[in-house]
């Protein structure tokens, strides 16, 4: 699974073989294909971009073109062992309701998101007075899809408010995993494994 993006590789490593997985915002299906081929996982995907869906179907994956904000509601309760939401939470209309949906359709969920409290972000805003454009988030404020700017601390507080347990968490910077110390300053993005 070395070809996977680091956050996806961590998720793949921690999914039990032979389980049922819904990958929300599955992109080209790289994670789903890895789970299917290496762990005999029954993987389903939801993806908004028709070109990506086409790529997924062409590699034999079951992916529905749809909008997570609207279409997650049509999946039955507890249909999956895991729901995965990678780099999509910050684009949701209501991230808190999205989290509810994840834990309704899945027994557990993996959520990855960019940490908007990374020191580069903070310095861009504090010293330059500009909304940050970084290597990890290269799009200007007016065209970004990221409408809810979340930090590691914010996400922990949302979990606490909802009574959701953070079973595990991983943090990344510079394309590799880093420790949890000072993660809200140091991490470019984070992955949480959560459950009720």
């Amino acid at each position: 699974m070395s070809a996977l993006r680091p956050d996806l590789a961590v998720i793949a490593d921690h999914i039990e073989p032979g389980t049922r997985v819904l990958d929300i915002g599955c992109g080209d299906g790289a994670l789903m294909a890895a789970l299917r081929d290496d762990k005999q996982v029954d993987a389903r995907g939801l993806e908004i971009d028709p070109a990506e869906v086409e790529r997924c179907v062409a590699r034999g994956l079951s992916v529905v073109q749809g909008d997570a904000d609207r279409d997650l509601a049509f999946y039955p309760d507890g249909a999956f062992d895991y729901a995965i939401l990678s780099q999509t939470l910050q684009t949701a209309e209501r991230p808190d309701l999205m989290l509810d949906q994840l834990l309704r359709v899945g027994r557990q969920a993996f959520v990855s998101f960019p940490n908007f409290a990374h020191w580069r972000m903070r310095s861009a805003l504090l010293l330059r007075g500009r909304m940050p454009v970084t290597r990890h988030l290269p799009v200007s404020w007016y065209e970004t899809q990221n409408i809810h700017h979340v930090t590691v601390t914010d996400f922990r507080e949302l979990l606490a408010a909802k009574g959701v347990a953070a079973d595990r968490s991983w943090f990344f910077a510079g394309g590799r995993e880093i420790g949890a110390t000072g993660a809200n300053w140091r991490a470019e993005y984070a992955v949480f494994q959560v459950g009720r």
Partner: protein
Amino acid sequence: MDSPIDSLHCLPQFTRPMAPQTASNSFTLPSSLPLDSGQDLDGVAIAYESYGTLSPARDNAILVCHALTGDQYVASTHPVTGKPGWWERMVGPGLPIDTDRFHVICANVVGSCMGSTGPASLAADGKPHAMRFPVITIRDMVRAQIALLDGLGIDQLHAVIGGSMGGMQALSLAANFPERAARVLAIAATARHSAQNIAFHEVGRQAIMADPAWADGDYYANEARPDAGLSVARMAAHITYLSEAGLTEKFGRRLQDKADGSAGTKSFGFDADFQVESYLRYQGSGFTRRFDANSYLYITRAMDYFDLAEEHGGHLGKAFAGTSARFCVVSFDSDWLYPTAESRHVVHALNAAGAAVSFVELSAPFGHDSFLLEVPALDRVVKGFLE
């Protein structure tokens, strides 16, 4: 052709007054066909074409289901029009439905007029059934397809594939005979006919039945055929197969050139002044040469009766409960006959049933007919799904 069983069932063609003898293969159902109406239809013949070689394990068969006015000539020259098969761009060696790998079967639906039993076929009294033919449903068509597969010794299809009414058959087959297809591909289809769908069909039927030559359906021995009515039905339906933008791009308000080649002018009469009028008239009259008016009545009725949820206690999810087939549902953004919302409705039901489903709305300018036309993304989806 390729299957040894074909020769056992290669019976003489039905003597039909409308269309020439066309079927490359004909299979006569060994027992009567039970219909949703409660009637049974005896001696049903199913005309079909097949391509590619059936594997020794008989596990590489793909059933392609045709649309309302389609037929079994999916990838062979039409015997009446001389035109290429209706899906030659999709079915053939090296194409997305690859006949080098798959044994492709396409059967004329019961009720149609290209060799399968329909209203133009002769009844036991030696006269055409005409309006004595029982009203059939999409599920009845599928029962006949299943009887054909039984006759060919094919227990499970690699895939069942269809666009439009063919997609309805694919969904009906998946719901009613879930063990018979490992993959189900429904393109530009719906799980139920909407009021608007029924309304357009009713316009067509009324056009046919208002034609004096229709003669209560008993026109087969007459010189005059209800061509005018059938032609209007086709013209009205044809509009629903195209997009508004497509019609505007193709014809706009342009006038038709005159017969001598000079630029067209408004005639201040009721000739086909506009190119779009001329096109529709051509489509209508061409259609009457290859299609039986009564078949048009019966098949449109079957489509109007189609409501897959109604057959399964009002819940579409129940129609697919427990299915182990993989599904792929495709819609087109310019299709207003069976819009994307209808496909999403099917997908949500399949999600609720826990089925393995893919869905994509493809962008194409051609309206409902996009499934028949040059849409490279569709080729990629079909090819990938069949892997």
